[in-house]
C-alpha cells in the first residue's frame, strides 16, 4: 500500500495557515457549514470587500484529505472575486492533492460548503445574518 497522503496533503495538514478565525474585519462576512454522517464537519468563513474574497478561513473535524482540500481551497481563492467560486471543481483538488479514489467522496463535503458559501456571498447585503 502506497502512502495515501501526498506531500501536499501532508504539508497542508501539518501547517494549515488558513485554519481558524478571520483575522480582520470586512464589510461582509459570510460563512457556511457542511457535515456528513461519518462525523466530518467543515466550516468556511469569507471576509469580503468589493466582491473580493479578501480572506478565507476554515475550521474542520475531518480526515486529512478534507483538511488539506479546505486549506488548498482557501489558498487558491483568497484574493479572487466571489463569482470565481463558480470555478471550483472538486476534481482539480483530487488531482492536485492526489486524493486516492476511495476517498474522493469526502471531498464532496467541501464542495457542498463552497456552494453554500457562494450562494450566501451572492445574496444582497442586507440579508446577511450574524454567522
Amino acid at each position: 500500500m502506497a502512502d495515501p497522503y501526498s506531500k501536499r496533503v501532508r504539508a497542508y495538514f501539518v501547517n494549515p495557515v488558513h485554519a481558524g478565525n478571520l483575522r480582520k474585519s470586512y464589510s461582509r462576512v459570510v460563512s457556511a457549514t457542511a457535515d456528513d454522517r461519518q462525523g466530518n464537519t467543515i466550516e468556511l468563513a469569507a471576509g469580503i470587500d468589493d466582491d473580493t474574497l479578501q480572506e478565507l478561513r476554515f475550521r474542520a473535524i475531518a480526515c486529512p484529505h478534507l483538511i488539506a482540500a479546505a486549506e488548498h481551497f482557501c489558498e487558491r481563492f483568497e484574493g479572487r472575486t466571489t463569482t470565481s467560486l463558480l470555478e471550483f471543481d472538486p476534481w482539480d483538488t483530487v488531482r492536485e492533492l492526489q486524493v486516492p479514489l476511495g476517498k474522493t467522496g469526502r471531498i464532496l463535503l467541501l464542495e457542498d460548503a463552497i456552494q453554500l458559501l457562494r450562494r450566501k456571498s451572492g445574496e444582497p447585503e442586507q440579508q446577511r445574518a450574524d454567522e
Partner: protein
Amino acid sequence: MTGTSPLPVYLDHAATTPVDAAVTAAMVECLESPFGFANPSSSHIAGRQSAAAIEHARVQVAGLLNAEPHEIVFTSGATESNNLAILGAARQRASRGRHLVTMTTEHKAVTECFEALEREGFEVTWLNPEMSGLLDPDRLEAVLRDDTQLLSVMHVNNETGIVQDIGSIGAICRARGILYHCDAAQSAGKLEIDLKVLPVDLMSLTAHKFHGPQGIGALYVADRPGSHPAPLIYGGPQERRIRPGTQAVHQIIGFGVAAELAAARREADTEKFRVLRERLWQGIGDLPDLWRNGAEEHTFPGILNVSAGGVDGESLMLGLEPLCVASGAACNSQSGESSYVLRAMGRSDALAQSAIRFSLGRGTRNGEIDRAIERYRWAVQHLRALAPARAATANRA
C-alpha cells in the same frame, strides 16, 4: 513528521509483534541446516528428523497452555483456528442443535464465522457486553437453550484489552454440555492459561502476537468426546486430518521457541506493561474530553485504548506519525465505519472512530512511551485547534 522522517515508534503490538531474535535464530537454523527442511510426512531419515522437531514444538506450545501435545493442531494462524473451531464444530455438531451464542465484541474472524453459519441456517444469539465490556454471566445463562451447542467468547479483546472471565463462562457451558470455544489470540503467551483447570474445549492462538512468526497458529482441541471439529480442508493425514497440508517446519519451530520464551517471561512482561501503561495514561489523561475505553482493573496491561472528543480518527492517526498505533476509525476506506467493539460498549460513533489503541511489547521502553505522550498531546491539540469551536465537547458518549 516534517523534514527527514524520524524513526517510527511501534506501539502496535496487539496487531503483531517483532519476532524474537531467538525465534529467528531457530528458524534460520532449520532453514539452513542440510536437511532441516525435510517434509515431516516423509518416511526417510530426514523426514523423521523434521517430524521430531515438530513434535518438540508441539510439546512447547502445549506447555504454554498446560495442554497435552496431542491436543494441539497447527494451523496458519488464529483466523484459521477460529474458523476451524466455529465452522468446524457447529457443522460437526449440527445434529446436537442449531443454536449458537457469541458476543458482538468478538474479532471479525469470529463474528464473520457466525454470520456465515447464519446463512447456513444456524441461529445465532449475539450478546452485547455490559458498558464495562464484560459479559454478564446471568445474561449468558438466560439465552442458553436445550439446542445450544456452541459458544464462542474471546479471552482478551483485541481493541480494548478487556479480559473476560473465561473460567466462569466455560463452567456455565460445561454444565450444560455446550462446547466452549475461546479466541485467545491476544492472551496466549501473555496471560496464564491452564487448560487443565479452565473448562475450555477449543482455543485459538497465533504465534505472531507473542514474538513468534506470522502465518502459524494452533487450535487446541480438548481430548474430550465431542470436541473434534469437522475439518475445513482435506488432503492428507497431517495434524490428525483436522488440518492437512505439508507442515511448515521452520514456522512451527519458531512457534515452539516463542511459546517457551513467552511462558518464561510472561509474568515479568505483564508487570512491565502495567508500569508503562500507567506512565502513558499519566502523560495524556489530563487532556480534556478524553475517554479511557476499558477500566484498568478489567484490561490486559499491554493495551491502552483512548477516545478523544472532537477529533477525527484518521487525522489523529496522521497527526500521531511516526507513532505506529491502531485506530478505531476504518482509515483509508470509504466505509468510514467506526469500531463496532466500542460502539457495543456504548460509545458514540464519533468517540469510537477517534479511539487510539496503544499496545505494548516486550521491547517497549520508557522513551517510546514519552514520545507517544508528546505526539498524542500535540495531535489532539493540533486537531482541536482546527475544529469548529462548538464541536470540541459535542461528541460525548
